[in-house]
């Protein structure tokens, strides 16, 4: 049964991906992409990686959909565009590459081991109970630091492209809609609750800063979508401070560890440290993601013109 399940998931992933690439209408491609995320998270579940499934659920179902949907904007009006030419010239090399890689995969050694055993051996030294969190925060903490840096740089890049000083300068007053207001009343408290729950879970079970941050970010985006002014009330200095807090926490850790123990990125053996990092990272991930979604170029002038040229 398991095998059939794997096969079906694999085939449908490939089929949906192919449709996404080949479908004419952009809107359909985006809807299919949301479905693709769902199928992927079923695959993560099947492969016993609940962390990834949770992250994929949060990103794929929520934020990626909103980002793409917003970016699509007027574009969906260009229906039935001709499919790109040069089909075979491009398809055959890709097919060849796929065949080559598929052949290579047969050579994956049967006694492949990975780093799993080594991690479980070293786990007691980290004072963390859950191996994925231990890898993220301790063994490969440098990666996590830089990952927060990537988020931050993406926000800086968006500001640069927008030529805006602060995210709030580029935020639009969202249309107030009754249904949306009603939905957030229902969902927002739940989101905050679940965000906190995932954060708390991260120390000993699947969950953690990133997943929690995405859920909080979704809450923020939803607030804005429903036209709630509360996000705009946050002073822009605070906005900036919250945005960089996760990165700064690691930065302080990195520099202070140089001072007291001559070794980069070591951390004190204290629960407080883990808590601090997780909270700061969650907050800054949430704020950065909100900024990334909301920093959309003003829609009025440009799109009017765009629509004229397109039609």
């Amino acid at each position, binding site marked *: 049964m398991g095998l059939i399940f794997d096969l079906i998931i694999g085939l449908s992933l490939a089929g949906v991906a192919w449709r996404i690439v080949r479908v004419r209408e952009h809107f359909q491609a985006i809807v299919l992409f949301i479905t693709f995320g769902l199928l992927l998270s079923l695959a993560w579940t099947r492969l016993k990686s609940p962390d990834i499934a949770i992250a994929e659920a949060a990103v794929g179902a929520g934020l990626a959909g909103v980002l793409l949907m917003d970016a699509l904007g007027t574009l969906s009006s260009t229906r039935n565009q001709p499919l790109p030419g040069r089909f075979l010239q491009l398809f055959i090399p890709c097919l060849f590459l796929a065949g080559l890689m598929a052949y*290579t995969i047969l050579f994956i050694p049967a006694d492949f081991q990975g780093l799993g055993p080594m991690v479980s051996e070293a786990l007691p030294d980290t004072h963390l109970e859950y191996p994925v969190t231990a890898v993220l925060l301790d063994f490969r903490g440098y990666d996590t630091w830089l990952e927060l840096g990537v988020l931050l740089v993406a926000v800086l890049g968006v500001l640069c492209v927008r030529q805006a000083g602060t995210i709030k300068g580029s935020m639009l007053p969202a249309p107030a809609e009754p249904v949306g207001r009603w939905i957030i009343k229902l969902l927002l408290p739940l989101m905050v609750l679940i965000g906190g729950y995932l954060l708390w879970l991260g120390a000993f079970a699947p969950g953690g800063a990133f997943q929690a941050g995405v859920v909080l970010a979704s809450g923020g985006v939803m607030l804005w979508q429903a036209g709630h002014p509360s996000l705009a009330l946050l002073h822009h200095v605070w906005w900036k401070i919250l945005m960089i807090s996760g990165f700064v926490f690691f930065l302080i850790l990195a520099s202070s560890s140089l001072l007291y123990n001559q070794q980069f990125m070591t951390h004190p053996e204290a629960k407080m440290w883990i808590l601090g990092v997780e909270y700061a990272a969650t907050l800054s991930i949430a704020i950065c993601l909100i900024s990334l979604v909301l920093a959309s170029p003003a829609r009025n002038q440009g799109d009017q013109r765009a629509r004229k040229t397109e039609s």
Partner: protein
Amino acid sequence: MPELLILVPFTGALLCFLFPGHIRDVIGLLCAVLTFVASIILTGNIYQNGPIRLNLGGWKEPLGIGMCVDGLSVLFIFLTGIVGLLVSLYSVSFFSKANNQSLAKHFWPLWLFLWGSLNSIFFVSDIFNAYVVMELISISAAALAALSGTNASLIAALRYFLLAMAGSMAFLLGVGFLYAQTGTLDMYLLGAVTDGGPLMAMALGLMTVGLIMKTALFPFHFWLPPAHGEAPAPVSAVLSALVIKGSFYLLLRIWCTVFQDTTASPQTATLLGLLGLTGVIWGSYQAIIQNRLKLIIAYSSVGQVGYLFLLFPLVFITLDPAWKIEAWTACVFQTISHGLAKAALFLAAGNLIHATGTENLKSMRNIADRLPMTTFTLALAGVSLMGLPPSGGFVAKWMLLQSILASGQWWLAAAPILGGLLTAAYIFRILSQAFVSDDQISCCGHVSFVMEKSALLLAIFSILIGFRSKEVIFLLSEQVYFVIQGGIIP
């Protein structure tokens, strides 16, 4: 010490993000000076004491992430330090001009982030970490390329970014293949694995393609000229002097540390060499037929990057270690002298454009007597690019030619010879315009002292580096050879 090279720029970037106005310039400049000093000290340390390895968080590889600093990394760090400092100096003046003022607040944080992540890619010793750092570099570089906000620059930036992302994805899949074969992510442990199966070969292929896309080797060069040509002058200087060197450095590391004995085949190396040769000729030819100053310089990057790839057939086919070192030195020399000369050219071009208000080659007439310093800078940097003695470019091309002859791969000699001629053609084309006097064109706006001098200093350094070849050879042969060969630092 290597940690400071990452911490200082990152801290500076955050502070520049938080503070407004002139404080930002002061902080940015201060961080630039500090980082520069740190890179000089680090270079000195490695020169005297040999390579070092750090284990971050106190975890030994393969569990933790390591950082490795050897002669090769410090040479790149050194280049980044010099170019970074002078470009920062230049930008303080450049962005204080009225029409650029609003750009400064985006430039400083992104540039310092870029600097920090470039430094960290030169220390990288973990392949997944390399992926994350590369993304950091791509995003900040693409954002900087879009800084001027014109249509062309936005499109060029996005084209670059899509290509860079695709390259990263290929690299990531390559990481997966390597992990499947070996179960480790540390480069030096990977290098110790002796059996190179199809998985390793596929990983090599994916990573190489991913990285040459970012380095703008010949068939993937199309994104480079618009992206570098449309950005503001200091950004162009950084992009072509440093950013493409970041991915090239990673390519070198991966070929020499991870795959060198097991998987890297002579055929692939020859193919890379051939692409490099084509790139040299095609890029230089394109540079000759352009009419806009910055596009000429940008196409010239395509040509100069081609030289770097001649290293692969030389190192992976030749067996004599002495000539291998010669080829190595030639390649590193080419990297450094090209970085310095290209940054100087772009900054000088920025000065000219600032003074004349246009970048059409025709309207650059008359500048020789109005802007003698800038013209001199163009000439000096041109000398280094062409490879006239005693510049760094000359040493690079001379050693390249020597090792080509020693290795018996005669066809490669076309690159330094033809490439040199073609380079001379476009450099003289720029300079000849500068000396034509034309009464119809009235010239020129005022160019500030700092902007002129920082470009000039870069050009002078690109010449002076030619006198310091002994130290470079020492750094490469004594202090890194062991590391390049896949040995693990005790």
